[in-house]
Structures are given as structure tokens and as C-alpha cells.
């Protein structure tokens, strides 16, 4: 079976045999940690990421896929437009590396782009705060732009997705990523203003979330058109940050629209919510109501229990075992990075046994959160080899 067939089988399309092996945020965790970059880039400079040199980035992805042999290609997301890529060049000098804008007829200007530090970086989403601008429903319409799928494609913003599909699409499951609409709307307003809106102006926030969902759905359409297989959606406001009533009225209808839009286009929607677990089962149950195709919970932390056997139990109790695929959540720090080989082996075996035997193979093996920059390449391959070994169909 190809990686794609294995993952589709875990989603109920075919008979599950080998347990698929994937890594969430593979581009983020691996490309942004310089030692991983060196492992996969084979001498290519770090700034090809900033320049969006698609041909070279494809070569890096190919090396990574060859060395790690995971079953999906992560990060088939929008890239800068063709026009932007044509008009921006990277200029490395002895002093700094510059991104130079060479748009014809415009003033040439440049800015410094920074090399990731040796220990790697985590994605730092920009702190946008439009709360001073967006005060009314009309402001939402005016400032939150919904870019149509056709336009995204026409401007070349889907070129990276198209390239990945063309290169790997026959063998691997191509996974695009969207920002969940509640999360995305709150990012527009900035963290504290969003929290205030939940309490003081939920009507405006709901309008913003709905509008954001419109934009996200256009992205989903564009990804589907390019041939992606699935969507990954991370949502931060699913935990005990907001009340269940706030989630039900403000977030859930928009998230549900995105899930349905993806499903209608034949895409698998994998939901990665934070803050739900045994201690907040009501939140987990609320997510199950929306019936995404897959659910991936982070590993248990600080006594917050998200153990896989508990997840299986909840889904089976609700009769959802044939509708929702579960993802493994091996602890990225305490097991993959710092655990002994025996710890790693026994946890992988335990999770695969649960996924295969108790959940009848509707299961994809993964780590709970992104691989850390401190994890060595050897440790990463040890993890992957163990998953392959224990995940192969028993003879």
C-alpha cells in the first residue's frame, strides 16, 4: 500500500492493514530547526524558504520524505503570489541576507531576513490588533477580505500545493492547513480584545468568525481544486478559555461549516483542538458533535489527561468508531525527545495496539505535538522505524 492508501484506509476508505505513520507540523518542526534543515537541505541555503523557491523547496521535501518515509506531505498551504515571487529576490551579503523588492517601476527597497537560530524557532504568529478599526459589522465586511478560490489559484498562491500534489500526490496523502475560523478571527483582533469581545460584544465577534469562515472556505475550495487530500485545522479556543455556551454560539457553527465544506469536496478534515481531555470531556464531546473526519489531541500534560484509550472509550460509547479517525499522541518531549529507547518502544506499541485492536485500525500514528528542535535526527528515525515495525500488519 502507498502512504496515501494507508491513510485513506484509516479514514475508512479501504481495509486498514499497516498503521500509517505521520508527523504533524513536519515543515514547521523540521525545516525550522537548523540541524534538521542540514539533514534535509543537502547544502541549500536557509533563505530559499523565505524566497519561496518552489523548485528547491521541493527538493528539500523530497529528501525529507526519502529519509523519513512518512505517509503524508505536510504543509501544502498557500504561498506568496506568483507576482510577489517574481519581484522579490534574496541578496546574501557579508553583513546580512536581504529580501529585495524589484517590482518594475517601483522604488527598490530591501529588508533583512534572519537566519533561524541554532536551536530552531517556533512559529510566532504575528500579533495583529485590528480591534481599533473593526468596531461594527460593516467594518467586518470592509476589512476582512474574502479572497475567492479562483483568484487564489489565478494569482499563483496555490502553486506550492500544486507542486506538492504533482510530485508526491500519487504516493502520499497531501495535507493542507487552514486556520480554524474562531482562532483566525481572534487573531485579527488580537488576544485580549478577542477575549473582551467574547464577554462584551459576542454579536460582533460572531460576525467576524462567520466572515472568517467564508474566507477559510474559499481556501478549502482552492486546496481541493489543486488536488489536496485533507485539511488540518488547529483551534485554540476549544479549551476552558471560553465557556461551552460561547463556543456553541460563536465558534461551532462556523467551524462546522468549514468541516462540511471540506467533506463535500472530498477532503478529510482533521481537527487539532487544544485544551480538551478527560478533565474537559464536555469540550471533547462538543467537538465530536461536529463530526470531523479525524481528531488529533495533544499529549497529556501536567496531569491533563488525553490518553488514547480514554479517547477510544468516549468515541465507542457514542458509536462514532466508524465515523471519526483518531491520531496517536506520543509525548514529543518526555518520550520522543527524552525517553529511553524502551520508553519509546513501549509507548509506540501501546498506542498502536489500542489503535489497531480497540479502534479497528481507524488510527494514524503521530506524536502529540511538533517534534522539538532538541530532538536529534537519530532519535526521530528511531521513532519512525519503531512505528513502522510495530505498525506493520501482523502475519
Amino acid at each position, binding site marked *: 500500500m502507498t502512504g496515501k492508501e494507508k491513510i485513506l484506509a484509516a479514514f475508512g476508505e479501504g481495509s486498514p492493514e499497516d498503521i500509517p505513520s505521520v508527523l504533524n507540523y513536519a515543515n514547521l518542526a523540521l525545516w525550522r530547526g537548523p540541524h534538521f534543515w542540514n539533514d534535509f537541505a543537502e547544502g541549500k541555503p536557509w533563505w530559499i524558504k523565505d524566497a519561496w523557491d518552489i523548485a528547491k523547496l521541493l527538493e528539500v521535501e523530497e529528501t525529507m520524505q526519502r529519509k523519513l518515509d512518512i505517509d503524508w506531505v505536510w504543509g501544502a498551504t498557500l504561498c506568496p503570489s506568483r507576482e510577489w515571487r517574481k519581484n522579490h529576490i534574496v541578496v546574501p551579503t557579508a553583513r546580512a541576507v536581504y529580501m529585495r523588492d524589484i517590482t518594475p517601476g517601483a522604488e527598490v527597497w530591501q529588508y533583512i531576513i534572519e537566519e533561524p537560530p541554532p536551536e530552531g524557532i517556533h512559529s*510566532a504568529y504575528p500579533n495583529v490588533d485590528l480591534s481599533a478599526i473593526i468596531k461594527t459589522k460593516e467594518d467586518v465586511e470592509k476589512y476582512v477580505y474574502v479572497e475567492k478560490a479562483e483568484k487564489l489559484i489565478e494569482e499563483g498562491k496555490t502553486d506550492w500545493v500544486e507542486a506538492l500534489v504533482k510530485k508526491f500526490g500519487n504516493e502520499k496523502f497531501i495535507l493542507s492547513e487552514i486556520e480554524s475560523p474562531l482562532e483566525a478571527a481572534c487573531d485579527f483582533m488580537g488576544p485580549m480584545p478577542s*477575549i473582551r469581545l467574547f*464577554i462584551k460584544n459576542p454579536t460582533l465577534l460572531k460576525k467576524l468568525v462567520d466572515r472568517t469562515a467564508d474566507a477559510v472556505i474559499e481556501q478549502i475550495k482552492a486546496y481541493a481544486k489543486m488536488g489536496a487530500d485533507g485539511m488540518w485545522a488547529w483551534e485554540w479556543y476549544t479549551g476552558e478559555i*471560553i*465557556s461551552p455556551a460561547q463556543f456553541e454560539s460563536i465558534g461551532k457553527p462556523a467551524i462546522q461549516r468549514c468541516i462540511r465544506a471540506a467533506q463535500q469536496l472530498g477532503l478529510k478534515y482533521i481537527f487539532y483542538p487544544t485544551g480538551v481531555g478527560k478533565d474537559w470531556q464536555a469540550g471533547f464531546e462538543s467537538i465530536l458533535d461536529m463530526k470531523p473526519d479525524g481528531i488529533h489531541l495533544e499529549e497529556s500534560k*501536567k496531569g491533563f489527561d488525553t490518553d488514547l484509550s480514554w479517547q477510544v472509550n468516549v468515541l465507542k460509547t457514542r458509536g462514532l468508531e466508524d465515523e471519526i479517525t483518531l491520531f496517536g499522541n506520543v509525548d514529543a518531549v518526555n518520550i520522543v525527545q527524552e525517553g529511553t529507547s524502551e520508553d519509546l518502544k513501549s509507548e509506540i506499541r501501546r498506542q498502536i495496539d489500542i489503535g489497531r485492536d480497540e479502534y479497528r485500525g481507524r488510527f494514524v500514528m503521530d506524536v502529540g505535538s*511538533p517534534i522539538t*528542535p532538541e530532538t536529534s535526527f537519530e532519535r526521530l528515525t528511531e521513532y519512525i522505524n519503531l512505528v513502522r515495525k510495530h505498525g506493520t500488519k501482523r502475519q
Partner: protein
Amino acid sequence: MKDKTLKKEETSMSQEEIFDGLRNAVVNYDDEGAKRLAKEAIDKGVDPLKAIQEGLVKGINQVGEKFGAKEIFLSELMIAAEACLAGMDILKPQIKAEIRANVKPLGKVVMGTVYGDIHFIGKNLVAMMLEANGFEVHDIGEDQPAEAFVKKAKEVGADIVGASALTTTTRLEQEKIVKAFREKGLKTKIIIGGAVVDPAWAETVGADGYAKNLQDAVNLAKQLMK
């Protein structure tokens, strides 16, 4: 119009009613109400320190209990804390200089989220709760490198630095912060927190303490000041 009516009602409020009003403003997430009643307290010559203790702090403690009992959620706790601080901002400067001299903060704390990490909720809540419990808090915000913690701590003469990290990839920054302080010979106590932080990690990086939750953070800070 509504404000005028309220103002009229408030002018005839007793001291106890003002305290109740301040407490209710916090419980009802009403920062404007907290500000208005704080001004009212000053206009009527109510002891501002008493207004803080009997009104605002009682309100935030009541909200804290509701949060502990899962009757309310983080967003509500944060907005209640904002209302509490809005009232405090007006009342605190009115505490007479001689009283202020005798009512020193329990300690000075610099709070921030580490470099590469933009999560803020835990950090903001701890900052607010520390302030409500008598600490002088300087919040340097999110995505802050070790040098920013050092700089602010030196500037304000901090007793404690609180560094928050939510992700597996950013908690390394906590180690850098501890190192930066120790390399400069600064004795500031450093406490760390965040979803991926546990006592073992605190020990690994050489922090002076780890707080699992809000109450832990307040207790730990008080403990470190002894």
C-alpha cells in the same frame, strides 16, 4: 442618560454600598462601573485602600472561587481581573504617600512570555492575580528574549521574574533566561510556568520555582519573598 441616572444614585451611596458596588463591578466584568465607583469612592472621601480591599479584591476572590469551581471560564476570569485593575488604577494613586510608604508591595515581579511564543493568557492571569494580591507587576508582554527580562528586572529592581512558555519548542528560552540572570550575577528569583513546564524542567533549567496554576503562582511568589 443611563450614566447620569447611575451617577445620581451613586452620590447617595454609603461606604458599604460603594464596596458592594465595586465588588459587583468585578463580578459582573464591568470595568466602566469599577472606574466610576472608584472615582465615587474618592469623591466621597472613602479610604482608597479599604475600597480596594473590601471592594475590588473581594470581588476578584469571589470570581476566583467561581473559576475554581468551573462555574466560569478563563475569558470571564480575565475580564473580571481587568475590571479589578481598572478600579485599582484609579484608587491606588489616591492612597496617601505616608500610607503607601508603609504599604509596600509584597515584591516586584517582571512577567513575560518567552521569545518565539505569543501565548498570553496564563501570563496575563498570573500577572493580574499577583497584582491583586499586593505585588507590583511589570508585564513585558509576549515573544520577549532573555535580555528583555534582564533589562526590565534591573530597571525596576525586580525580586522575581516569571517566564511563561506554552510550547515544546519555546520552553528552551526559559533556560536561556535563567542563564542570562545567573551569568550577570543577578540574584532575582526566577519562576517558570506554562503548559509544557513541570517541576523536573524547572530543576533542569535551574529555576527557583515552578507554578502549575494561578494559585500556585501566587503562593510561590509569596513564599519566595519570605
